[in-house]
Structure formats: structure tokens, C-alpha cells
């Protein structure tokens, strides 16, 4: 069931995937103001990769991901913990939000955003880790 999907599935996956990924980024970034956020966005992105996995198989997905999903988990967790620390620099309690405005595009960049990106990566990585392991196990 895993190696190759139907034609429709592969075409859909190829077309949908970039859209889904873009949509997930959109959900991530607007999450602070509208429904969305790191968790939902991460799930959507994971769904995109999962679809690709079912359509093109493990090797192709691996190649496309480049990094092991486990590393995404590690990175996300690391970012999550890291985002608590800048406050320490300012002598504030951990987790105190720090806001910086990016000069050119007038985008407000903040530690909660870093945190949310961490969440995003962890969700994406975790789901993929589990799915890849399941698929691999089936293949064995």
C-alpha cells in the first residue's frame, strides 16, 4: 500500500504539497491573531508530507525532506527551550516575551513566535517520525 499510489494520488500530491506547505506557514504566522498557530500549522504540514509519502514512497520523501524527521523534533524542542532564555538576558523571568520589530517589512518578531515555530517543527517532526517508522516497519 505504500510504495506507489495511483496516478491521481501522485498528481494530487505533487500539486497540493506546495500549497499545503504554504498554507501551513500562513496558519503559523497568523496564529497569534486568528485561529491557527503552531500546532494546527504543524499538523497541516505533516499531512502534506504524509500525502507525499503515500504517493511516492519512503525514499522519495526522505530525499525531499533532506533531514531526518527526528532532527526536526530535536530542533523544534531546542528552539522552544531557547525562546525562554532571552528574557534572562534582560533580567526578567524566563518566558517573558521579547518583541523586536524587523525594520524593513515592519513585521513584529518575537520570542513567542520563535516558540510557535518550535511547536510547528516538533509537531511536524513527531508525526512524521511516527508515520515513517510505521511505514518502514510495514516494509520490513
Amino acid at each position, binding site marked *: 500500500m505504500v510504495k506507489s499510489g495511483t496516478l491521481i494520488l501522485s498528481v494530487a500530491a505533487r500539486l497540493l504539497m506546495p500549497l499545503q506547505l504554504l498554507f501551513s506557514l500562513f496558519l503559523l504566522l497568523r496564529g497569534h491573531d486568528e485561529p491557527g498557530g503552531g500546532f494546527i500549522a504543524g499538523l497541516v504540514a505533516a499531512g502534506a508530507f504524509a500525502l507525499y509519502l503515500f504517493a511516492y514512497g519512503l525514499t522519495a520523501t526522505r530525499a525531499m525532506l533532506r533531514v531526518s524527521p527526528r532532527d526536526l*523534533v530535536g530542533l523544534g*524542542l531546542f528552539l522552544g527551550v531557547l525562546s525562554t532564555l532571552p528574557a534572562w538576558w534582560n533580567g526578567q523571568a524566563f518566558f517573558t516575551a521579547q518583541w523586536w520589530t524587523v525594520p524593513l517589512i515592519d513585521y513584529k518578531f518575537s520570542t513567542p513566535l520563535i516558540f510557535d515555530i518550535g*511547536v510547528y517543527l516538533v509537531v511536524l517532526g513527531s508525526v512524521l517520525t511516527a508515520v515513517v517508522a510505521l511505514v518502514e*516497519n510495514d516494509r520490513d
Partner: protein
Amino acid sequence: MQLAVLGGFVLAAFAPLLHRWFGERAGLVMALLPAGLALWLFGQLPAVTAGQTLVFEYAWMPGLDITLTFLLDGLSLLFALLISVIGVFILIYAGGYLKGHQDLARFHVVMMGFMMSMLGLVLADNLVAMFVFWELTSITSYLLIGFNHTDPEARKSALQGLFVTVGGGMALMAGLVMLAIAGDSWSLQALTDKGEILREHGLYLPMLLCVLGGAFTKSAQFPFHFWLPNAMAAPTPVSAYLHSATMVKAGIYLLARLQPSLGGTEAWVTILSLVGALTMVTGAFLALRHTGIKKVLAYSTVMALGTLTMLLGIGTEEALIAFATFLLAHSLYKGALFMVAGILDHETGTKDIAAMGGLRKAMPISAICAAVAALSLGGIIPLLGFIGKELMLESVLHAERFSNLLLIMSVAAAIMTLAAAAIVALRPFFGARRETPKPPHEGPSTMLTGPVILAGLSLVFGVLPSLVSPLVMSTATSVHGSAVESYLSLWHGVNLPLILSLISLVVGLLIYRHWERWRGWQAQLDPILNRGPEAAYFQFMNLVVVVAEWQTRMLQNGYIRNYLVMTLLILVGLTGHALVFRHDFDLDVALDVRIHEALVAGLMVAGAVTACIMRSRLASVAAVGTMGFCIALTFVLFSAPDLGITQLLVETLTVILLILVLFRLPRFATLSTPLERVRDVVVALATGSLITLLILAVISGEQLPSISEYMVANSVPLGHGHNIVNVILVDFRALDTLGEIFVLALAAIGVYAMLRFHADEYDAAKQRLPHEEYLDG
């Protein structure tokens, strides 16, 4: 003082090192410590006999009223002297007895530890500190009894001794705590003055019983006497030291120490004198039943311990003098006899008296020692044992209660003891020469030093009682609580005790002559004797195991649904009980439902119920999915869009996951019986109703305003976000979210490891592929 004792423990720890340095003579080096202590104690004699009490204070855990204060009065001085002096001889003796034994170093570690514990026990003024040493003697004696640990019998006996004494120790602990509460002090010295308060206290009887529980088990009083003869599995130096002179007397020491605080009441007098007398007779009687020389001696020790307890029970001034004298006499002759027994065992290769005979030629010094010590044991003039026995009979005659009964029992015990003394001293050395497993010869000087000196002292003190009179009197003073003015003498003239002694001498020798017949007669009692307290001990131990196994079968039976049912019943039972009895139900809820909401709720329930009853796996999963989507819809309907989306995504993923996994699993089968299903339905409904009631109780009661008002107000100004839920997640309560992503990551690692890593296959694969290729599949 404290330093000497604590230093002894340190010395014990270094025993292996000493063995490396001094080899075989390490025991002699170690004996220097108790020898020094003994000398120091002798130095304190004049002050103590003059009526002084020396106190050496040292704080330990003041928060818990635990101090390491040592106290030196007549009683503790007598005990401390016995412990250190006999300890010196035992260390010397053990060097000969265990010569070349591979574990001699370990023996010295434990022996030294025991000696110091015993010293601490008799010197400590604080109840807790005393108890600490008390338990230490139990533990070290366990290690000593089980010294020959490869022998199952030794292990069994060691466990028995430990279990009985520590069991008593538990009671003692409770008793001491009650004592301290009642007397409002943890100091033995202070409690001595509070006798009246203690005896009037409401806790007096439980306190007394608990303390006696500790003392009686330690000192092998009936019905706990059985462990002592079994403890003879220990090497002889241990028996000589622990089971005659020191450890078993710890209980006696405790009783004597508490006599001024707790003694004198009706309960005290009744229990102590009757139990003591019973123990005395039992010990003497059973001594004649055995042919193993150590067993005979062990039972005669039981007899002596009973006598001492009885004397404390009688509690008159006279009785306490008798107590002190008897105590001293017994320690001297019993130590000597045991050491001689060890020589016999060591040099002839047998412990069976019946197999020995006529050894006096081969072992003249041992024979003399044995004879002298046995005369003291038998209570024959002019030895110290004689004085002790005369005083004992005298005080029994004048006892305030049970005088006649006690007298009969005492004489009976005296008769049998005399027979026992004759058996151990005459049988092996006199009469016809018998073949022994090893050709007999005299023991080495290290082994003879102890018996010669101890037996000699029995004689010297007997002839010249004035030498020990001050010490005995000051001991009696400590026990009595007020000054005792008297002195010891060998000859009291012809009186009733002397006549009774003569009678017992004659009858005892008669029994000795007809020992074989006597044993035959005793053997007929075996069926009764075999049902004694020892059988009860084994039954108790079996009972523990049986109950344990039964309980494990009942509770920890491996059926997960039993675990769940039990847990849920507890939940429903406790919470339900609280809900019914602690809470006034006042259901006041308005039902405001719109039709589409009711539909969604109905579908939710239908989904859940369908999931339960469906026989098909796929249908069941689909039903769960339906329910999940209804929940998502509910979230959306009630103003929680983020929740709705999340629930939708998660539900989808879960269903996919379930289907992926279900592929590999078999179809549902009906496994439970109808009855089980009924039970499960009942449990399920009970839990469900409880939850419903709880929610109703909460929503119909007072609901305080939520802290989220602050979050609503500050989400934009302080949190810079318009989605309040998201601001809560990444800012107000970011720590929750941090934890949450770690949960997710952990679950992923768990899943990954579970699927990809199987330890057994891994090990096999690693051998095939030396490089870590397997790791990443």
C-alpha cells in the same frame, strides 16, 4: 567514653587491614581495646561503688531528643565490665578456635561491632540510643550465628534468632516511645525518678507489655526461648559470648534498668515472676533432653535467664542482691563452660556428649576448668554459684506473691540444673574412655586462657565474696532505686535454703546416674514438646507466605480488567460517598438547548455507543470518528474555533493511525461471558453517572469569576495578539505548551523506538554488521 565505643566500630571496620598487617595475631591486637576499656572501668569502680553516677554527655540528634549520653552506675558498670573482660578472652580464644579460617577477618569485624554495640546498649542513657544499640546487637548477632553461611541450618537459625529478637525490638520501640511520652523524657536516668507518674499513667499496661515483649524475646524467655538453643549453630566463641554472657542478658539488663520506673506493680510482679519461673523450669528440663554439649549449655542458659527474670519480678532488696550475684556468677561459669565445650569440639571433632568419655587424661586443664565451672553451675559450695543459688532460694522463700509455687519450681530447676552440670562436666572427662573422631589432646594456650581465668574467678569470688561485694551491692542499688546496704558471705549457717540445696544435690546426682532412662522417659513427651512455641513460629512464617500468596493471587493477578474494576470501584466508592454524605445536592439548572445542538449531542452519544456494540472493527473505528467530529462541531458551535480545527485534524490522524494498525490485528471476538459483561456495564454506568453528577454539582453551585478576564483584557496591550487562545498558549501559559510539545516528541521517540528497536534482534544484527548500519534502518 563515647569515643572509645565509636572508635571500636571504626576498629571493627579496619579489622581486615589489621589482618593484613598482623596476620593471625590480629585478634590479640584488637583485644587491646576492650582490655583498655576494662582497665578504665576498673578505675571507675571506687567512684561508682561509693554511690556516684558518672554521666558522659554527647548530643546526637537534639531535634528528636536523641543523645549519645553514657551513664555509668553500678548496673551498667557490672555489665560493661563483663562485656569487656569476657570480650578480651573471647577475642583471644577465637584466634585459636578459628585459626586459619578464611573468614577470620570478617569474624573480627562483626565480633568487634557486636562488642561495641553491647557496650553502647548498657551504657546509653537515652532511650533511642539504647534502642539503636539494641538493634545493632540483633543484626551483628545474625551475622555471627550465620557465620557458617553455606550451611542451610545456620542460615535458618540465624534468621530465626533475628526475626524473634527484631520482632520483639519492634514492640520495644513502641514501648519506649510510650514510656517517653508518659514520662516526658527520653533519658533513662530521668525516668528513674518518675516511677510514680509512669505507674499511674493510662498507658502503663500497654507500655509494660511492649517493653516486656522486647526484653523477653531478647532474653529468650518462655515462649520465645526456642531461638537460643538453635543459635548454637554459631561458632563456639560466639555462643560463649553472645548466648551466655552478653546479648541474651540485654533483655535482663533492660528490665533491671526499668525496675525503678516500671517495677513493683501487680502486673510487673505477676508477669515477671511467673514467666521467669516458667522459663527457668523449661530451660532446666529441656537441658536434660539433649546430648549436644552446646545445646545442654544453651538450655541451662535459658534456665539462668528465667531465674534472673524471676528475681527481678520478686523485686525485694534480697532478690535484687541475689539477682546481681547470680548474674555475675552465671557469666563467669557459663563463659568458661562454653569455651571448654569449644575446646572439646575443636580437639575431639564431636559435640555429642554421649560420644565422649574419659578425656581427663588427654585434657587435664580443660577437665579442671569444666569441673570448677560446673560446680558453680550446680550451685555447690564454695563457688560463687552457690552464693547466688542460696540467695535466690532465700529470696523466693520471702517472696510476697506466689512464694510456694516459685519455691517448688526453683527447687525443681535446681535439681535438673545440677544434673545438667554433672552431665557437661563429668561425662566427657570421667568414666570409660571412648573413641572420638579426632584423637583428643589439650587445647592451645589461646583457648585455655579464658576458661582458666573465668573458672578461677568463680572460685576466688566464691571463697572471698568480699572482693565483689561492693560491686554487687552497687548494682543492686541501681536496680532497686535506693541504696542497698548489705554484703555477701559464703556461709549463712544451716538454714532452709541449705537443706533445699542438699536435697537438690542428691536428687540431681540420681538423675545424672540414670540419665539414659530419664531421656527415654522424656522422649515420650516429644509429641507435646514438638508442638511448642517453635512450631508456632514456623506456622506463623508459613502463614505469612500463604497469606502473601493468597493476596497476590487476589490482587496482583495479571488481569488488567480486574485492576481497572478495582480502581474504578475505589473512585466511584470514595467520590460517591463524599458526594452523598458531604455534599448537599441542590440541582438548580436551566436547560437551554437548541435543536441542532441536541442533534450533535445525540449523534455523539450514538457514535460512542455504536463503537461499543459494533462487531466490525472498521465500523467501530468509524463510529469513534463520528463521535470525534461531533465533538469538533460542538467546539465550533460553542465559540472555540481553534479547538474545533485541532480536534478535526487530530481526529482524522487518529482514525488513519487506527486503521493502519488495525490491519495487523485480528477481528473482534466475543471473549467475555455475559456475566462479566453485566458486571462491566454496571461499573461503567456507575462511573458515568458519577461524572454526570459531579458536573451537575459544579455547574449548579457557585462559580467564581475566572482569571481569564485578565487575559481577555491584556491579550492585545501586553500580549500583542488578537487570538486570545493563542496568546494564552504561547505567552500566558507557554510553559504548558512547552511541556506539551515535549510530550509529543517523547511519544514520537517512543513509537519510533518501539517499531525499530528490538533488543534481541538488535544484538544479533550487531554481530552481523559491526558498523552501526542497523541503527537507521
